[in-house]
């Protein structure tokens, strides 16, 4: 079975995010006032073949923990959706 995966990698609470701060400081120049808490993360998308949803989840969580995110400074969250069979 194939699954579509979207992993979002976010800086943990309290970790400085200069990109987010700069975007937040720039928005008022376009008239967008009252925006707070801008945080910039990464979205990593891919397809994975696995025996079932549980196996896909185990593999994705493992790659997040060991590679896609650095647990010292980042959190990750993965959305996993089974790809409909073709035909």
């Amino acid at each position, binding site marked *: 079975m194939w699954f579509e995966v979207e992993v979002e990698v976010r800086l943990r609470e309290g970790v*400085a995010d200069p990109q987010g701060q700069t975007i937040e400081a720039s928005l008022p120049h376009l008239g967008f006032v009252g925006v707070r808490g801008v945080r910039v993360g990464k979205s990593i998308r891919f397809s994975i073949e696995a025996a079932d949803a549980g196996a896909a989840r185990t593999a994705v969580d493992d790659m997040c923990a060991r590679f896609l995110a650095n647990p010292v400074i980042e959190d990750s969250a993965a959305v996993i959706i089974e790809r409909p069979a073709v035909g």
Partner: protein
Amino acid sequence: MTTVGVVLFPGSNCEQDVVEAIRALGGAAEILWHGDATIAGVDAVIVPGGFAYGDYLRPGAIARFSPVMGAITEFARIGGPVLGICNGFQILTEAGLLPGALQKNRGLKFLCSTVQLRVEALTNTLTSGLRVGDILRVPINHFEGNYTCAADTLAELRSEDRIILRYVDNPNGSVDDIAGICSAGRNVVGLMPHPERAANELLGSADGLSMLRALLATAAPAAIV
């Protein structure tokens, strides 16, 4: 003669400065290609600064998969001296050879200046020739130099005297003013400042030489099994 291997990743940019500094101290230096799964019998390894693999994903995150890293990890395991400078420090944390991580600097700035470092511990391969309390002037040049780690890791670094250098005036927000640390075995060292750029008074400071001299002394061929 003591030979230092200087690792070259795609995106490294400080390797020739390191080679020059080592040779100025009378050591031999050779470039280690990241794609070779060997460190060719060198007596010490320096992972230099730069932007290995373009800092894709995170600084150091991809470099740790290079074939040469397996040989460096084994060399570190048997007690060989390994020094990571700037991006090299980031690579060593991503490879699990040093604890913690380097996050974006406090404030919004890439930092490029000469800072003062205070020597805090001597039992390691980089500051063994110095005295606790010595003040060194060494350049920094980084965006992700803000050292952080879990609270229990910090407690361990403190209790085991593994914080070897602190900033006198913390430029980047590093926890506990940390500029450099060493491994539990004390043979792996990482620091954000660039000792190789403080290798000549004409260029502002020669304080980095005392550190690289200590590395050469501890890396003398007889010192390693």
